[in-house]
């Protein structure tokens, strides 16, 4: 019997080296994971009082840009972010996250960078906040189509008291498919009414008593074939009335609400007639109870209607040109204008004085500053004896003995205005024009203009009250490109450019999918 063959040390060493070389070659043939293969699609920038926040769903990060010496700060958030909005009056940003199996709501405290996560009873698409930021109503959007769900009950909403983490599910149970809007009523001692407008009516519930079933009010009587749909709702200042404008109806729908607390609120529906071609409604100035403002395009009228239908209490203004929108200024004054037209009118809804002005060009929708009795109308082009081209008209309403005067002041622009924002105290108006890197500050009282040129064109503007910063959002790749500049300055030396900050933390992705 022959002895078993033995391997020499040299041959063993050679085999070990060959194995090492093969192992190295094998390791070098790794594959790429999915962390960097999907497109970054950041959500729209959200401005708080002192920072702008960009949510990047693909990296599961919210990037906080605070003007100052440091780099943008990344904060880790839950997966599946699809909507972000500032909670009014706070420095928090609410972010809808999660999946169909586990929807969630992340609340980012911008100052501390802390994130708290709450469970949500549905994969909602959007949030409507009360003006004071105490409550948020989470709704589905028919166009949302979130996730992979094939069926959604759009009549569900979530009520979130922002001081806590609980989101309460409410079933509206209406005949309509989906909410069209959410309107918070005035703050009352024991209740806060919320109206959810829907195609066929409105649902009203008390945010302080979410356990009480909503009151459902249909504007289509049983068996009716009328196809009208609610397009706007307005609460009266005492929450006694809820006014609706619906398509195809010239009457304002006035819903008288009961004072019930802790029970389903009672509702009595009336139809109040005025002119023809109802195009907008608004709550009247303070002190005018049981009434609603309405403007009619077809009959060229504005009305202060009595909600109870008492014709003797109604007031009417005959306009020379059709108006389609209205806004309440200070005192009892109301501004009326027609979108796409050139005419503007003002009306004192109590004493009946009025005035009008014809602007040099057509406009879309103005920026109204009620505190200053002023409105700003951007024109893509004007044609006057003085010249042609884009312009910005300011209209200031002032009182004269027998009428209201509309003082018209025009500012020439090199290109049409593209973006604008008011400062927090509505004393300054910031805007940019097309194809120009300049940002203009206009003092609303004196109309003094201050211009600073940035490095690239801005497509959006945000004003940060904390530190008085103006943040210009640049067009381009869409990965976060902003310049922060001290508001109202011509000096570029204080400006800071933040480039592509959506990539922040992209290399540090622990816990993310491979």
């Amino acid at each position: 019997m022959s002895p078993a063959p033995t391997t020499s040390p040299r041959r063993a060493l050679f085999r070990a080296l060959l194995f090492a070389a093969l192992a190295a070659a094998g390791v070098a043939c790794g594959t790429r994971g999915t962390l960097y293969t999907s497109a970054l699609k950041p959500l729209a920038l959200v401005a708080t009082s002192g920072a702008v926040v960009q949510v990047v769903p693909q990296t599961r990060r919210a990037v906080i840009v605070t003007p100052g010496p440091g780099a943008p700060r990344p904060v880790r958030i839950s997966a599946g972010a699809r909507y972000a909005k500032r909670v009014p009056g706070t420095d928090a940003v609410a972010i809808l996250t999660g999946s169909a199996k586990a929807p969630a709501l992340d609340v980012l405290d911008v100052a501390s960078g802390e994130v708290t996560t709450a469970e949500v009873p549905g994969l909602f698409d959007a949030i409507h906040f009360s003006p004071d930021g105490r409550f948020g109503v989470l709704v589905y959007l028919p166009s949302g189509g979130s996730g992979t769900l094939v069926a959604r009950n759009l009549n569900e909403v979530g009520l979130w008291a922002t001081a806590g983490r609980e989101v309460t599910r409410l079933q509206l149970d209406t005949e309509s498919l989906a909410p069209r809007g959410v309107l918070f009523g005035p703050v009352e001692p024991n209740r806060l009414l919320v109206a959810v407008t829907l195609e066929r009516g409105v649902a009203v519930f008390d945010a302080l008593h979410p356990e009480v079933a909503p009151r459902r009010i249909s504007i289509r009587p049983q068996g009716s074939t009328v196809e009208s749909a609610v397009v706007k709702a307005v609460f009266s200042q005492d929450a006694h009335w809820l006014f609706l404008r619906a398509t195809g109806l010239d009457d304002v729908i006035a819903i008288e609400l009961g004072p019930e607390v802790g029970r389903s609120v009672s509702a009595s529906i009336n139809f109040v007639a005025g002119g023809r071609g109802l195009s907008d409604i608004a709550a009247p100035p303070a002190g005018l109870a049981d009434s609603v403002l309405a403007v009619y395009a077809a009959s060229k009228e504005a009305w202060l209607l009595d909600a109870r239908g008492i014709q003797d209490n109604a007031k009417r203004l005959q306009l020379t040109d059709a108006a389609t929108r209205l806004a309440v200024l200070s005192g009892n004054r109301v501004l009326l204008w027609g979108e796409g037209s050139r005419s503007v009118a003002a009306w004192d809804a109590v004493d009946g004085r009025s005035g009008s002005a014809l602007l040099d060009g057509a406009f879309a929708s103005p920026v109204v500053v009620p505190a200053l009795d002023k409105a700003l109308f951007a024109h893509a082009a004007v044609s006057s004896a003085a010249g042609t081209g884009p312009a910005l008209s300011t209209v200031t309403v002032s009182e004269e003995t027998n009428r209201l005067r509309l003082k018209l002041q025009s500012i020439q622009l090199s290109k049409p205005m593209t973006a604008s924002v008011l400062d927090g105290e509505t004393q300054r108006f910031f805007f940019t024009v097309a194809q120009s890197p300049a940002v203009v500050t206009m003092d609303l009282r004196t109309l003094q203009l201050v211009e600073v040129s940035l490095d690239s064109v801005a497509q959006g503007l945000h004003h940060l009250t904390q530190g008085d910063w103006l943040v210009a959002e640049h067009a381009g790749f869409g990965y976060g490109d902003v310049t922060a500049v001290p508001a109202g300055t011509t000096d570029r030396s204080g400006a800071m450019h933040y480039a592509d900050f959506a990539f922040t933390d992209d290399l540090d992705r622990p816990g993310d999918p491979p």
Partner: protein
Amino acid sequence: MNPRLALLAALVTALPARADWPTLSATVGYASQVYLSRSWDLVDDNDHLPMGRIGAGVTFEMAAGLVDVEAAYQAGNTSQTLHTAGPAQLALQGFDVGASYRWPVLRYLHPYLHLGLGWDWATLTVYGDARLLQSVSNFAGSGMVGVQVPLVLNPKLKRSAVLLLDLGFGGVLRPGYAFDAMAPKPPDKKPEDPIAVRPTDLGTLPMSGLAYRLLVTVRY
């Protein structure tokens, strides 16, 4: 005759005459590093950084075995499409000084153990240098085992040039490279009142990994 040229000619003609002249070598080849971190997927799809390497060394005979002391320069880069929108590229270059203990177990098989220290520069570019760019540098340590296969070019000579095939495998240790100040490349002509650019912090890229190399060396 130019005195400098005369001196150079004298040195060259004197070289073969010195039998005790230390053995010198020149190396060129391929040196790849393999990174298993997921972050490496930012710039590559198969985890490795291919590099070219050139070096020069000297060999000392020891009581048992040989010691090759080498200085080398290596450089390489890799790039990959980032978030479907554009390329992200990492370029690395550095100097490496090291020593190999070589054991000629066979005439045509010399296993060795190599240890080295170096200094590297890495530049990460996202979507071109007009978008985001940063260069960082740091030290590196490397260890490797391998084998050299020598081929004597003219066996009849007492001292002949030797062509070596060098195959090594090991690892490289580096601190993570912090790309925390990514910013666009400053313009060549600076404006009079430039707007300050605030950096973007991409995070840290781990730079320790495996290494292997395939070199061709001429030793004389």
